[in-house]
């Protein structure tokens, strides 16, 4: 029951975020979206992911988008120009077409979930490959209790190194592109 309510909230957040013209409010709503998503992750027992979602999605992303907003306007351009522009009317057909594409894609994705194994089923193919080894041998092989950390840092150490390099590159790009010269 609570899962359905949470998912409903997510959908509402999504709709409101698209419908809003105030970009600051949209940013805050997306933060709320991430927080609800974090609760959903917790409900799925993915606590590490929930932690990341709460700190990155709800926390830092919101702040960084607001920081970017401080350099631009708070309202969408068409509102500042006074009402919906002619462009909006012109692309009505195109927008309808886009809606169709989104609905069809969403439908196909939903259809795909029918084939997915039941949640938490220990006999899933996904749960039979390397998962038993991680669960049984993580402490023995890495000396770490939380095997999410063990997978990230040890079994998939190269991936995490790549991930850190991506963040490093992002920081470098921001410095190169946006740093104001004195």
């Amino acid at each position, binding site marked *: 029951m609570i899962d359905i309510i949470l998912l409903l909230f997510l959908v509402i957040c999504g709709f409101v975020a698209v419908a809003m013209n105030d970009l600051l409010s949209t940013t805050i709503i997306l933060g709320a979206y991430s927080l609800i998503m974090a609760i959903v992750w917790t409900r799925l027992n993915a606590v590490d992911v929930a932690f*990341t979602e709460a700190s990155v999605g709800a926390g830092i992303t919101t*702040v960084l988008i607001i920081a970017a907003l401080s350099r631009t306007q708070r309202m969408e351009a068409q509102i500042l120009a006074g009402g919906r522009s002619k462009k909006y009317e012109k692309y009505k057909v195109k927008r309808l077409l886009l809606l169709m594409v989104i609905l069809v894609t969403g439908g196909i994705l939903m259809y795909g979930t029918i084939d997915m194994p039941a949640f938490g089923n220990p006999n899933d193919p996904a749960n039979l490959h390397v998962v038993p080894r991680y669960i049984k041998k993580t402490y023995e*092989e890495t*000396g*770490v209790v939380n095997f999410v*950390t*063990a997978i990230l840092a*040890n079994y998939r150490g*190269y991936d995490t190194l790549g991930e850190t390099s991506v963040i490093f590159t992002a920081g470098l790009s921001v410095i190169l592109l*946006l740093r104001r010269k004195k």
Partner: protein
Amino acid sequence: MKEHIVVRTVCSILIPFIQLFALYVVANGESSPGGGFQGGVILGASIILYAIVFGMKSGRKRVSERLSDLLISAGVLIYAGVGLLAIFAGGAYLEYGALPLGTKKLASHLGIYGIEIGVAITVAAVMITIFFETARHEDD
């Protein structure tokens, strides 16, 4: 927000605890949820909060451009360095068990600690840098 005394007082009390929590998340990542990435983000967020409340200039006084630039690369260097140390110790790249730090299990544990700290430093510094470079400063 420099003129809001309530915000200023609350934040100056809260920020040390936020930073302590960030360090806890990094240090305790191997036995509870969390780790370098989340801890780094929280650490970065505490500095961003400071800059929002006390102004960009005093924020940059605490974490100068030079320092944050240095930390961005230092984190990746620590991560890659731990991997290289493992090669010098006779293992494969990033094979923490080969590090000469007591038993294999302990070495692996400490190696994971090392890279978590590296990840945390880079993530925190990058978040701080992105904020300071994108947000509008008082004087422009």
